[in-house]
């Protein structure tokens, strides 16, 4: 059975920006083992060169549409008043979102 060491789970939590308790790290360590064992069954599925090449183009058959470089229509659902867009932020300063010091925080936790 595949597994990840406890330290790896703790590291993943840090990368994923999740402050976990010891108990959560323990539980996720156990569950990751069974999940990884399950998804690793994929290694037994033969995938030929055609599939390898085609997968790079994507199976949805969709390419992104690029909008014309013009202002949106006045009634577009995407038009947002900046103050409405900012209304959900816990710390604001006028038309800006305020955040804690970036560098000090990163040094502590990187």
């Amino acid at each position, binding site marked *: 059975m595949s597994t*990840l060491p406890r330290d790896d*789970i703790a590291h*993943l*939590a*840090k*990368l*994923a*920006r*999740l*402050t*976990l308790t010891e108990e*959560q790290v323990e539980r*996720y360590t156990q*569950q*990751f083992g*069974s*999940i990884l064992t*399950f*998804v*690793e*069954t*994929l*290694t037994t*599925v033969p*995938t030929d060169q*055609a*599939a*390898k090449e*085609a*997968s790079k183009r*994507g*199976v*949805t*058959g*969709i390419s*992104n*549409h*690029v*909008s014309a470089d013009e202002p949106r229509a006045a009634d*577009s*659902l*995407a038009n*947002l008043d900046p103050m*409405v*867009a900012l*209304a*959900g*932020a*816990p*710390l604001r300063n006028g038309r800006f*979102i305020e*955040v*804690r*010091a*970036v560098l*000090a*925080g*990163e040094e*502590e*936790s990187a």
Partner: protein
Amino acid sequence: MSAPLITLTIEEVAAGLKAGEFTSVEITQAYLNRIAELNPKLNVYVNVSTELALAQAKASDERRAAGKSLGVFDGVPYNLKDVYATTDSPTTASSRMLDGWVAPYNATVYHKLKSAGAVLLGKTNTDEFTMGVSTETSWQGVTRNPWDLERVSGGSSGGPAASIAAQLATFSIGTDTGGSVRQPSSFCGVTGMKPTYGRVSRWGELPMASSLDQTGPVTRTAKDAALVFELLAGRDELDATTLDDKVPSVDGMIPPAGDKPLAGMKVGVAEEYFGDGVQPGVEKLIREAIAQVERLGATVTKVSLPAVPHALAAYYIIAPAEVSSNMARYDGIRFGHSVERENSGEKASLYDIYAKSRAEGIGTEVQRRIMLGTHVLSAGHYDAYYRKAEEVRQVVATQFAEAFSEVDVLLAPVSPNTAFKIGEQVNDPVAMYKEDVLAVPANIGGIPGISVPCGFSNGLPVGLQILAGRLNEAALFKTAIAYQAATDFHKQYPEVA
């Protein structure tokens, strides 16, 4: 019309409103009364927008009186799964992260329904951020199955499916990333459909896995589902992945009259959908449904889809990878739950604001998937997991395309099981994931699928899954409409006392 208002289909409501047999306010109030009575027992709605619904219903009645009805949907009450952004009611994804959040803009899906005059009753329960198969990961608690209150309603669109089974709306809108419309529809004995990937705009639909997410209707009949599909599908400038292809009209999906409405239609059956783990009671009903479709004139042939059993493992790499990216927006800085709200003044690093807000606001299943996605995308694991999963996805899609060059539709179970007991599997994530083993291949292949009720096993509903090739929703709806014309499983409703 003598049937109670809460039992009517979209078509019947439209006809009743047009004939002046009742008003939109009356049917809206009938649903609001029933929601007030049953929601404490079932936990279907996470918020009921009573004032908004009555205002929309009143406006609809006034339009109609003035001879300006907007058509079939004008005045018809419905609900949205709690993942569509609306400016006039909260959207929470059934997560603590968005508790009480009101979006600053409207989803295209809501905009289209509003513009067609439909009446929004409220938002219905989902697994947190749509991640789950039973609504047990919802921060608002589980939605009980109207057929057996000790059982789950399925998920993640358990609220939408239960709302139709318990007659708490005329129709509902859900999302299907890996079976999330079809599986709960199967568990609750209602009709639920997932269109081809890219048919319906995802603008304003809170994302889970963007290459898989697709909006679909939950309804009383396949014809109703086709009407909703026709309304919602189509290119949207605000979703770069919506398709330009012409949306088929409902008129072209109606099977001809007579006892062989499916004459000339080729139906495929793949034994890969009947492997180990499919309950005998479920398999029996699906085989009977296939025989019924054959009696309606279709030719049944065997097809081979050897990669289909592996779609689920590919899904549990691709979906968490996209989840880990999509969920990064919930950072405690711009909107949603934030420790900063209680914390102002105290010293904290930016990292702590991120990580503590996310740890508090995001529940266990979502955390697990974010971490799994972070793992499979990390340097050194990317090729072994993510690239391999994308290749398997391509093989699945190719095999579907080959199968649909021979047949018009495939028939299969939606789920190996009927609704399971609440709490039965909560500590076993892999067992939970396997509930979607027969539903996920359609998402991995990007093809459309529908669940239609095909009988009861030990008193619990079972859904027949009808799958079609990319963009061929018309064949899927034609088969489903003909099947429902010949059967009455979709007309049976539970007694919810």
